[in-house]
């Protein structure tokens, strides 16, 4: 299971997933609105996942 946090919805969950792309499709995440962090590292969308990985979908912010 992969630990997932979706910041926009303030939602944490454990899900089965093989890669980030699959997570994006299954969780219906708008990939243009997030930066993706796996185990505290910025991650490309084609990255593979394994059990106990932590994935965060953090909103892109631009205000100043």
């Amino acid at each position, binding site marked *: 299971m992969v630990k997932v946090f979706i910041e926009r919805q303030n939602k944490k969950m454990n899900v089965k997933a093989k890669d980030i792309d699959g997570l994006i499709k299954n969780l219906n995440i*708008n*990939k*243009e*609105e997030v*930066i993706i*962090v796996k185990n*505290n*590292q*910025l991650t490309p*969308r084609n990255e593979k996942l394994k059990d106990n990985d932590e994935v*965060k979908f*953090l*909103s*892109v*912010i*631009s*205000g*100043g």
Partner: protein
Amino acid sequence: MQYQRVRRIINIDELKKKTVTIVGLGSLGSFMALLLAKNGVNLNLIDFDRVSIENLSSQIYSRKDIGKYKTKTLAKYLKKTNKDIKIKILNERLNSLNINILDSDLVIDCTDNLETRFLIDSYCYKKIPWIHTAALKTIGLVYVVNNSLSDLYHKNISLDSCDEHGILNTTSFMTASIAVTQAIKILLNQPHEKDLIRFNIWNNTFDKIKLKPLRKKEIQIIKLCRNNYSINLHKKLDLNILSKKYRTILKKDNIIIIKPRIIINRNGYIIFEDTNKEEVEKWLKSL
């Protein structure tokens, strides 16, 4: 006497020799300017905007400042705080023609749009250290740009606007404090934070995110706002040859600007203004 206590922590005499450029004087930039001024740092302040009533809750300005330029108002306020610092102001939106105001010891991005951020990136790339900051609602972000901003935003992205959602003023203060601490470290040649710092002041969460330069030196055309595009060719360019080949509007040691508005950094970083992807691809083939 003014610095008597802080001298025990940092080298104020060294800081007094430094100049920082702050782009954007809103909820982040106005407080960063204050913190830097109090530590004796000289400032270049850039903003085209005037103070409005909506700014008062999250920015440094007062009711009496409404309608006045943020640059002039802030410079006056900072001079009262520390009369010894030098302040240069620019009442314009940062653009390719006035971009040399960024020439300083450090640049801090406090803007609210990706277009200006990539413009800063293109000028500072491998030349001037710079810090990318952003905030929204209760989330703040500080990143001392190690390589290029395209390591963080390397795909098409859509961005929330602070005008729609606002920034809690405690978020502004915290973001400003973290960024200015990193700025002081950079100015004093001390080791600074390499990771991207991102916090949510409401939830008390604090992330340090590692960024690596793009694994492959991919040449990606990144779409910015207002039909602007950015690209990094990851190779040195000979600006003398290019300035002869293309109609050149401006030539400096690290960049040239050619017609139609294209900003070329000698390290291979290029910004295309007001065009489309097909034109960018066509131009790249002609290079």
